[in-house]
């Protein structure tokens, strides 16, 4: 089918565009482009209005509230009207490539040759070739075994290192925000609604080789809001950057939780750790009851509970469709986070996990992955006095699935590779270090089927480095997303984002509310 709804939802944009061979086709493609965005917005409207669980979706379609009913009707009409036009346009186009990305679609195969290619999940190729077609990896391997397509644009990367685009599981780039001081729990709040797609912080992250990022609200709340998984494609709208992980519900992010001292404040915030846990538990119990009422309503619209954005989000968490990203530092807070996740059976990633080295076996036994941070000194807050680079090798030994994050602006996205490198000082293996900034983090965001390694069929997100990824002397030279070069150190404007310059990185220190 021409309109690939599935991948549209997956990427957050429609993966269709034609190759403009002639002016006529280019003209046609302009139509396509607008169509795509428009069609996508209608699809997005559907999925956002019913952004939730299978059962919920089914029932709500039958008994939407007055507003959503109207919107759904409009949506359906629009979609019906559009379909014939799609087919009309399809018949006009001689070459159609899918998938691709409208804003910066790859229009020609690309072959990166001669590079030291680190696939992360497979072999490392000393003299490797990476072939990219339609935004995806077509082939990767030794030069002798990979054929270069005749029409490919060849990128000579002799002497360079190629590896997957980096995946950051915890960042605050994009100038977004989360919940306010009116409550300690804001599951209904979406950071997606506040992010500035033109933020220079995205360019800065590209300069560091980051291509997929979990952008989160802060840790000053027990629940500060919904996070968003982004591809750092140059974009004017946030929708163009989304990585949708649940095609049915349209879920494109996780949920940020925090425990420990950051959320402790005056009421309505908790004043103690035990109160924090009680408040989170109470909220999840309400969500369970809400979920039960929806299920009990069955096919009877009259028995459906009124829509509650906060509880709907928590039901997504309870059903395993939305991952909890739980900020936690002290060893006992880590265990509390595990206790609550176990009680409610939700999926969780432990974030920061400063004291991880003290409870590595307990974390391993829990099977929750960890997203850790490296900071240049311990201290600065009571919970961070044990933040030591030895955590990573200890977690590795204990068998914990873990990765690093930037927490940008806490650490700078441009220097993300420093974090695993400092852990290597302490004994972390090179392979785990490579995984800790790529595939391990992709797993934490449910996007490991698409990013985090160089494998045929995956998104062609890769970086070209001047040398070893863990050397201070190595620079990221190019960043590619879905087969399109989106950052190049040879471009003077791009280079400024790597080094700094006048009014270049103005949101680089954009903070978020941590509490204290």
């Amino acid at each position, binding site marked *: 089918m021409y309109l690939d709804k599935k991948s549209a939802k997956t990427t957050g944009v429609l993966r269709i565009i034609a190759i403009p061979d002639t002016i006529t086709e280019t003209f046609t493609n302009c139509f396509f482009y607008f169509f795509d965005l428009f069609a996508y917005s209608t699809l997005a409207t559907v999925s956002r209005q019913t952004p939730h669980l299978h059962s919920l979706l089914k029932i709500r379609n039958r008994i939407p509230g007055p507003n959503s009913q109207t919107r759904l009707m409009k949506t359906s009409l629009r979609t019906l009207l559009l379909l014939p036009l799609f087919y009309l346009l399809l018949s006009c186009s001689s070459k159609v490539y899918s998938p691709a990305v409208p804003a910066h679609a790859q229009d020609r195969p690309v072959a990166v040759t001669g590079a030291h290619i680190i696939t992360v999940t497979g072999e490392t190729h000393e003299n490797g070739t990476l072939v990219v077609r339609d935004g995806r990896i077509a082939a990767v391997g030794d030069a002798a075994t990979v054929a270069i397509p005749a029409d490919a644009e060849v990128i000579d990367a002799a002497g360079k290192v190629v590896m997957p685009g980096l995946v950051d599981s915890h960042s605050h780039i994009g100038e977004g925000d989360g919940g306010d001081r009116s409550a300690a729990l804001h599951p209904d709040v979406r950071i997606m609604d506040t992010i500035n797609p033109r933020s220079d912080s995205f360019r800065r992250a590209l300069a560091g080789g980051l291509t997929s990022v979990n952008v989160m609200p802060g840790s000053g709340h027990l629940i500060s809001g919904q996070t968003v998984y982004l591809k750092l494609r140059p974009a004017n709208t946030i929708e163009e950057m989304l990585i949708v992980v649940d095609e049915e519900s349209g879920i494109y992010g996780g949920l940020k939780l925090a425990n420990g001292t950051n959320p402790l404040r005056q009421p309505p915030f908790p004043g103690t750790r035990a109160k924090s846990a009680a408040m989170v538990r109470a909220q999840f119990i309400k969500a369970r009851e809400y979920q039960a009422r929806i299920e009990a309503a069955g096919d009877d619209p009259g028995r459906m509970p009124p829509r509650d954005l906060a509880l709907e989000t928590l039901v997504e968490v309870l059903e395993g469709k939305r991952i909890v990203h739980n900020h936690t530092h002290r060893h006992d807070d880590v265990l509390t986070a595990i206790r609550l996740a176990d009680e409610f059976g939700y999926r969780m990633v432990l974030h920061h996990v400063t004291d991880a080295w003290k409870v590595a076996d307990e974390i391993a036994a829990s099977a929750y992955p960890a997203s850790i941070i490296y900071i240049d000194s*311990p*201290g600065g*807050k*009571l919970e961070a006095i044990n933040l030591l680079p030895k955590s990573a090798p200890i977690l590795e030994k204990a068998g914990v699935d873990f990765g690093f994050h930037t927490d940008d602006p806490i650490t700078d996205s441009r220097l993300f590779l420093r974090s695993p*490198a400092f852990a290597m000082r302490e004994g972390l293996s090179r392979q785990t270090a490579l995984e800790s900034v790529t595939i391990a983090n992709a797993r934490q965001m449910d996007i490991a089927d698409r990013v985090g390694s160089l494998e045929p069929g995956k998104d062609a997100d890769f970086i070209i480095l001047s040398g070893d990824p863990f050397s*201070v*002397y190595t620079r990221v030279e190019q960043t590619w997303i879905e087969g399109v070069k989106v950052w190049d150190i040879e471009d003077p404007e791009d280079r400024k984002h790597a*080094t700094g310059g006048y009014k270049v990185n103005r949101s680089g*220190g954009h903070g978020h509310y941590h509490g204290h």
Partner: protein
Amino acid sequence: MRFSSQIFRPTSRTSIPDAVKRFVAQPAAVLTLIATLLFLAPPASSQIAVTADTVYTMEGEPLVNGVVLIRDGRIERVGTAADVAIPDGYTRYNGAVVTPGLIDARSVVGLAGYYNQEHDQDQLERSNALQPDLRAIDAYNAREELVGFLRQNGITTVHTGHAPGAIVSGQTMIVKTAGRTVDEALLDSTTALAITLGPGVRSQFDTPGTRSKGIAMLRQELIRAAEYAENRRDEDPERRPGRDLRLDALADMLNGRLFALITAHQSHDIMSALRLQREFGFLMLLDGASEAWMLLDEIREAGVTVILHPTMIRLRGETENASFTTAMKLEKAGIPFVFQSGFESYVPKTRVALFEAAVAVGYGLDREAALRALTITPATLFGMDHRLGSLEPGKDADLVIFNGDPFEYTSRPTHVFVNGILYHETD
């Protein structure tokens, strides 16, 4: 090291020879020294031989297969393995690279503590925007965890004291990162007055609320200090004003006994600092200087040394235009500069000058230039190159053994010696 409380005269920047003279004149102090050295003496021999593939002496070319002999806390001999035989009885240590102990040219460690709680934050007094009378020695916690943390990372000497954030926040001093008390650690009790220009002050105080008010307040106080100093020299004791600790300190700065350590990040604040220096003629250190790369000619002409912001400083507000390449540009422009850990209000509670230099090297600064800026340049700047900054017979035995390139992320200091004593051994 100094042990006499006499050296803590409020504002005098005591020169080393003075200190030695006073010191030797006090039998009690000498006894204290002996007792202290006995206490601090390492369990092993005080005769140490350090060997490495590369020894950066900072005196000429690096030595290949170098040897450094240490005896009684000082460097005894330096040379290649072919030239220097290791005598019997010397404890041997070996590594890939040896450098002199590193010098952090601007920090707040010992005053701004590890826990970041009210009780361990003494870097900025907020009752008054002009407090040149605040001495660093009265607040320095020699046993603060972050001091040990810096030492573990190869920093053996640190210029530390009051933080940026006030027009004059207080005094700074120079200490070794070893020693159980400030007295044991001290190299110079009163090095500079910490002065801040720009928007960083107005967030701390009701007044100054603007840049120009801050500069007006500073100029007025400096003029008062100059008049005070003049009047203090009046032949008629009756006409001499009573001692004023604040004006004492400012007068010492005007007389060149203390540096004016001026933190200024934006280009117009840097220009204001240079303007003040021309007006009052003090010895100036330009601190921070995020936009120094825009003013290379002006800074070079002013002849000031730049204590460059941490390379990885966060880009916000007045530091938004900071660049990873500034150190390289300063080097190319022939402007002397040194590295610092700086001040952080949150995390990391201290940076590490070595790591900041490493990123500058990664972005084009010559490696040996970076090492100079961590060793001999700050030693010379602070008038301590007779004791610190290079590996030369007679100098303090402060040195660091690395298991690889000192700037590489994946290599690290394995041994840190301060005054010939091994403090860290991590391999």
